[in-house]
């Protein structure tokens, strides 16, 4: 059913009259949990802090026990309430379905964690941060969003709830996938949920996510870049060599990014102005860049970088730089792609280049800029990759470009152009890497990991495809 455009005054009045107190419950609950989460531990045992509360085991003292029992109680209580609230909001037309789904997911996560911890106190590495934390933050975010949505009247009422609409959102599917993975693998092996492991997964994956965002920008315009793996390898070595040869660290960080943009501009110019198909140009560039890398390094790893160089090992507010970079770039790219003129032009060019030209958008310039932006993201990814370990390998991880393209595609980018988001690309990169890590935790033989991963990628892609097809048939 299409929503009928009611007059604006009508919907405003309606919104004002039905601002029921029930929507504020998650908010209140959030505040209570916030207090419970940050304040209670400090009252009882200040030195423990928020992130390192040990778990309920036989040799814990009563004080700690109280804290944890409080936390767990809070967990199941809020889990139940928030789940119920999320379900209710599904039928509330003013709440966006994504928010409803997020809320339900938050509630279920909280409950699941409660069950896991109730069953298995001995998960030694599991900490409060990873247990209550994730469900908690999701709940808070969803609740705040919901309040904003209900409180602020919109020009037209939000769409009626439709399962297909909700599933039509690739980001929702990916979040569901990630949550399902966390829950299933978490039940099998709670260590998977340990803070350190989850951070490791995110950190190791960050540079791929960053590159996948750049890739999705290119694919949205209907092009592709298969040289990205070689470029990351080359830029990483450039970065390392620079600093080893005495260049200031800041130069070693920024110059590769500039070179990345330059290479992107070169590829973009060939594609946009000389009209060579992008798959051919980047296939050629893949060979060229790889060749340069091999000649230059002679297969030798780069070592002996100064301590200050390792950007990816630095932490701010307890979270490492790669994760910050990933989060910030994802948000910036998402905003840019949705709200900027050029960002929207990407979709226009990818969706219908001729129409874009007639609306005064220059497809050539847009394609050129898309490749330059991809170069920028590749550069950043290369710096993250270069600075994460003490050595820089002479060759990038094999099939890196395929992993990046897969992340972009699983993230909902249509290979035909015109569709896709940055958030999807990042979530997909996280999911793919998490699958890899999860397989280790459920004791899959390391030799079979790639096969299982391949199957899962295939299943994800197929599911996405069928979902889109159903959607189209519906319309």
């Amino acid at each position: 059913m299409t929503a009928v455009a009611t007059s604006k005054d009508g919907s405003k009045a309606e919104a004002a009259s039905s601002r029921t107190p029930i929507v504020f419950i998650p908010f209140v609950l959030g505040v209570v949990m916030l207090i419970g989460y940050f304040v209670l531990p400090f009252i009882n045992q200040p030195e423990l802090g928020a992130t390192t509360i040990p778990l309920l085991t036989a040799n814990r003292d009563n004080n700690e026990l109280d804290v944890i029992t409080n936390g767990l109680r809070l967990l199941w209580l809020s889990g139940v309430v928030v789940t119920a609230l999320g379900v209710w909001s599904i039928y509330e037309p003013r709440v966006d379905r994504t928010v409803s789904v997020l809320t339900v997911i938050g509630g279920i996560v909280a409950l699941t964690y409660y069950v896991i911890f109730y069953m298995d106190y001995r998960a030694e590495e599991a900490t409060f941060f990873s247990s209550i934390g994730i469900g908690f933050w999701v709940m808070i975010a969803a609740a705040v969003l919901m309040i904003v949505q209900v409180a602020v009247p919109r020009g037209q009422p939000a769409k009626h709830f439709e399962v297909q609409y909700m599933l039509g959102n690739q980001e929702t599917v990916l979040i569901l996938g990630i949550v399902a993975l966390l829950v299933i693998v978490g039940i099998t092996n709670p260590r998977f949920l340990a803070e350190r492991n989850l951070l490791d997964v995110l950190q190791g994956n960050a540079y791929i996510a960053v590159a996948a965002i750049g890739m999705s920008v290119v694919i949205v315009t209907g092009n592709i870049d298969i040289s990205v793996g070689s470029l990351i390898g080359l830029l990483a070595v450039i970065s390392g060599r620079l600093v080893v040869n005495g260049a200031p660290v800041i130069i070693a960080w920024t110059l590769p990014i500039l070179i990345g943009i330059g290479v992107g501009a070169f590829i973009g110019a060939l594609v946009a102005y000389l009209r060579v198909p992008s798959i051919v140009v980047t296939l050629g560039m893949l060979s060229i860049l790889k060749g340069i890398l091999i000649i230059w390094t002679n297969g030798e790893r780069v070592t002996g970088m100064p301590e200050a160089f390792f950007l990816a090992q630095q932490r701010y507010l307890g979270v490492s730089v790669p994760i910050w970079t990933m989060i910030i770039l994802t948000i910036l790219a998402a905003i840019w792609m949705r709200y900027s003129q050029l960002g929207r032009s990407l979709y226009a060019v990818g969706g219908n280049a001729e129409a874009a030209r007639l609306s005064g958008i220059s497809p050539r310039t847009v394609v050129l800029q898309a490749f330059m932006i991809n170069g920028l993201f590749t550069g950043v990814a290369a710096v993250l990759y270069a600075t994460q370990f003490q050595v820089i390998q002479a060759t990038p991880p094999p099939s890196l470009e395929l992993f990046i393209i897969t992340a972009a595609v699983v993230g909902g980018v249509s290979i035909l152009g015109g569709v896709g988001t940055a958030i999807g690309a990042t979530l997909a990169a996280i999911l793919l890497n998490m699958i890899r890590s999860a397989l280790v935790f459920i004791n899959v033989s390391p030799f079979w990991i790639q096969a299982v991963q391949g199957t899962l990628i295939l299943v994800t892609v197929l599911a996405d495809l069928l979902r889109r097809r159903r959607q189209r048939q519906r319309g």
Partner: protein
Amino acid sequence: MADPILQLQDVHKRFPGVHALKGVQFDVLPSEVHALLGENGAGKSTLIKIISGVHRPDSGEMYLEGQQTHFNNPREAQQSGITTIYQELGLYPELTVAENIFMGHAPKRRIGPFEMVNWRHMEDRALELLAELNIHDLDVRRKVGTLNVGNRQRVEIAKALSLDARILIMDEPTAALTEADVERLFNIVRLLRERGVSIIYISHRLQEVFELADRVTVLRDGEYVGTRPVADTTEDQLISMMVGRTIENLFPKMDSEIGDVVLEVQNLVNEPTTRDVSFTLRAGEIVGMAGLVGSGRSETAQVIFGMLPAQSGTVLVNGQPVKINHPSDAIRHGIAYVPEDRSTQGLIREMNIRENTSMAVMDLVTALGAFINPGRERALAADAIDQLGIRAYSTEQTANKLSGGNQQKVVIGKWLSSNPRVIIMDEPTRGIDVGAKSEIHRRMSQLAAEQHLAILMISSELPEVMGMSDRILVMREGRIVAEYSREAATQEDIAAAMMSEPTPQEAS
């Protein structure tokens, strides 16, 4: 008479090998609908592309409100208030209605140093624009790819309005519309005219010109033929202006001796487009199939032809039940299908006439069962060129270099090569100029009368259905709802049968 808002004088445009416009003049008054007529290749497209800034004229002047102007690109034309709605719709299927309307000029909001697209404002403005057009049933957040053609066109018009268009160019806007959508479109056009927008209206359907336009200008072979007030002209006059000669008869139907039943369809079902369809087709007979776009005519034809699966039902050829699971089965049983969309379904446009002609019957031109014999292939193509009067210099000419009418003749030639007993023609003359149309009609008559082919002609043009058919079937919502003999049929009856229940609007 008011001063023209737009005036072109002595415009010339040459392309490599073609002198597309030879000193054409054209003017548009404020608040008028000015129809532009001409056969394909007469220069209409070139003229509107010059007006909308896609091409620059080689010589000649253009005056906008008395000021001499020229546009370097479509954007400049848009900024001066000239917007075009092209035949191949200029929309982005994966983006929302609101965004399509505002692509390239979305409302912005300044946040710090950044200009951001203001989505809320954009959606509100889109709703307002649609409301101005009396459109209240479009969800502005819906993806355009999920809309039907009529609604997409409304989005295009709203897009033009969002640019504050003073002159709106519509290139064959009704080509793909249902009758109901055409009526809605006409209402919108009249509404726009009342508001002071001038409309340049291009169409092949003369009927529409008389219904809608104030004045009409005719081009022929790149030359200006004349401009007339619609009230002072007749259909015949316009046709003779367009083709430079009088066409005696647009529908040269010959009397044909009607023979035995060749094709019989019994209770054919393919939900939701084909619901229990039964009819017969006799040798030498042309059966017209009328119905709204979306009534299931093409889908039914495609089920018979094996492109779509039949869920149940029987097809009998010469009284024998046949199993058709694939088009190749249909071809073997002597059924041919000239599809609706010649550029994507009918032809391989990148391939030449020879290759296209043999495409459905490659087995006929092979040696040893698999190897194509180019000599026989060429003979087959030359035969088709000859028989159908295709204007081409060689069998090796690429199909997309031909005009629409000649392309359609190649498609028909390809299917005649398969020696069919039954030929289903889906919109055989859509988007084809009057001259070629009459030739195709004449050829159809000959096929039925002289070669005793059974022809099922699906058409959305009632005059064509009335003029060409021995018998007329009307489809609505996947069912055949009425049948008329040639003598008994009236346009009113058929139209009523096509629409007798209110057509449901898509997905609502």
